[in-house]
């Protein structure tokens, strides 16, 4: 075990996969000479050269589509899209092409492509640079979408994504890059499609992913002192979604709150709530609640930005409301 940052975990994983497999190459804007907008790829151009670490012009549809085609011929491109907001420029190639080919061509070809991209607001980047659009991709059959919350999961899930033969979107988060955590040394391959109970509890389940999981864990530890036992389920994988783990937790705790950074309507939490009411209806003591972003284009001004994004205080408040609704005695 070594304590490293989420950024370092991603960097080290890219490096070890480049060393392990010659068919792996990195492609994206400013990942080489500039070393990445968020410095995930720092030093890799020097070590691996410009064909393994390929800088591109600004043309998301062009270079994501090129990665799709290279993957069709057996390469394993790892695309960096500078932020998930810019993935919209490439959505035709991701959704209409990368995600379709294996099924649409009768299993004759696969697309072992990874798209790494950070989402998230809170950096005063305003409306066009602060979105959480992962659900757009999590909606699409043929895609796999993972959302690591910790440095260890970043390593495990990025490794799994690179070795997977399907297109995988790895959702990173601007606010997580500097967070630190223990990461196992040596090879660590995560399992796409599995959620994890990252903190056991008995009174209420908080379901979260990516940055929200970190907040949920903080809140759970804080409430522990007040005598409330919160279980935290980290989704890790948005597609496939591990409904069984979510429902098993809620059957135990009888209460569920979803914490998510995306917008409320039609968001990840809507899918979780529907899953819980179907899979744990008889066990529920209160309606499932969702704590999600306010439905506005995220404003620049700090007080407005803070008001729009879900935070620990919002989660604590909603947990309190759910417990009170069921006359939970603290």
């Amino acid at each position, binding site marked *: 075990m070594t304590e490293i940052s989420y950024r370092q975990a991603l960097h080290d994983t890219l490096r070890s996969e480049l060393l392990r497999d010659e068919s792996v190459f990195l492609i994206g804007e400013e990942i080489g000479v500039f070393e990445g907008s968020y410095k995930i790829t720092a030093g890799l151009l020097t070590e691996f050269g410009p064909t393994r670490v390929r800088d591109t012009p600004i043309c998301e549809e062009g270079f994501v589509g090129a990665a799709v085609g290279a993957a069709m011929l057996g390469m394993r491109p790892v695309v960096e899209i500078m932020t998930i907001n810019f993935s919209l420029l490439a959505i035709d190639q991701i959704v209409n092409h990368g995600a379709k080919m294996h099924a649409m*061509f009768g299993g004759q070809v696969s697309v072992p492509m990874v798209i790494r991209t950070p989402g998230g607001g809170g950096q005063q980047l305003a409306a066009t640079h602060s979105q959480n659009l992962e659900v757009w991709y999590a909606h699409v059959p043929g895609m796999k979408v993972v959302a690591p919350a910790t440095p260890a999961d970043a390593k495990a899930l990025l490794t799994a994504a690179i070795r997977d033969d399907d297109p995988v979107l790895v959702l990173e988060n601007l606010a997580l890059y500097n967070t630190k955590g223990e990461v196992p040394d040596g090879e660590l391959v995560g399992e796409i499609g599995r959620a994890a109970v990252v903190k056991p509890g008995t009174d209420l389940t908080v379901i979260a992913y990516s940055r929200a999981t970190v907040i949920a864990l903080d809140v759970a530890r804080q409430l522990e002192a007040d005598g409330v036992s919160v279980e935290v389920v980290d989704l890790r994988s948005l597609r496939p979604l591990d409904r069984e783990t979510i429902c098993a937790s809620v059957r135990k705790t009888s209460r569920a709150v979803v914490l998510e950074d995306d917008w409320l309507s039609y968001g990840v939490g809507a899918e979780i709530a529907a899953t819980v009411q179907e899979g744990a209806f008889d066990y529920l003591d209160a309606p499932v609640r969702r704590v999600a972003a306010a439905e506005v284009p995220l404003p620049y001004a700090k007080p407005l930005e803070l008001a729009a994004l879900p935070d620990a205080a919002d989660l604590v408040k909603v947990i309190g409301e759910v417990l009170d609704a069921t006359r939970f005695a603290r």
Partner: protein
Amino acid sequence: MQAQHGTTSADRQQVDGFPPGESAQTLRGYYRQMSLVRAFELRASEMYQRAKVGGYCHLNLGEEATVVGLMAALAPRDYLFTSYRDHGYALARGLEAGPVMAELFGKSTGVSSGRGGSMHLFDTGRRMLGGYGIVGGQIPPATGAALALTYRGGPGPEAEAVMCLLGDGATNIGAFHESLNLAALWRLPIVYVIVNNGMGMGTPVDKASAEPDLYKRGCSYRMAGERVDGDDVLAVRDAARAALDRARTERRPGLLEAVSYRLRGHSVVDPARYRSKEETERLRTLDPVPAFRLRLLETGILDEDEARRIDEQAEEVVDAAVAFADGSPDPHPGQLFEHAYATPVPNAPYQLPGDPVVAS
């Protein structure tokens, strides 16, 4: 039917009325392919009207010389990406007519196992890497395939290359320009071929492109462009071969425009009322299939009996293709999730409509 790639020295006796180096056998082979594409497409249209074929169905009628010329230029080791107007290319690339027709019929024996239909023909072995239903959607992946080739080996006469076909309408999308820029910047072994049939659905080229000389649209990327008569199978073949050679040996991507005329509507269901009767009549006189047939008859490469036999054989191949498709099993609903993922994954959502999402 496999496209013929190159000619042997034994073939190279002079044939009157054709450029030096054309063998009678090769020329007859081209006509055989053009005749097959014509027969297949007319039958596909008929099968569509008889509801054997669903969805969209875009035909290569009028583009047969372009189809056969391009596929003659392409080596078996090369990769092909096409638009949704892909039946003829699949046949001339060497895919069997039966499984192609079966794909149109949505049968499990189809070239894409009935998953893709008319617009999405695919064959790994023939390196036919797909027809693509989204206009220009194939252009970035084709460019990426060429990028993958640069990791496999260096340039040279035996190197692999990619041919990416697109329609005239696709030259206006952003992905076309992004891809040409990348190909030129990275010196990728790819030839983009604009199959200009004069119309993007109902819109003529000069109403859609501010530079209607489409072969010039690569100049922003310093990419060599050339226009060729798409009704001339030999001119198409030679231009494509030269462009592919540059892509192979010099890693210089190219842009080729083959101009022909779509003899029918955009798809089977389009009566093309936006065209005048006079224009439709004029286009018929330009039909490349009878024109090439006549040329072979006039130069004595075929006599009327041989030509008729070739046409009859094409009909027989298509008859057999229809019988094969008709007799093939439908895919079973139990196979619905068969190709959901290439790498199996836990918790993959394999529910049918109305199934519970969580096991109780």
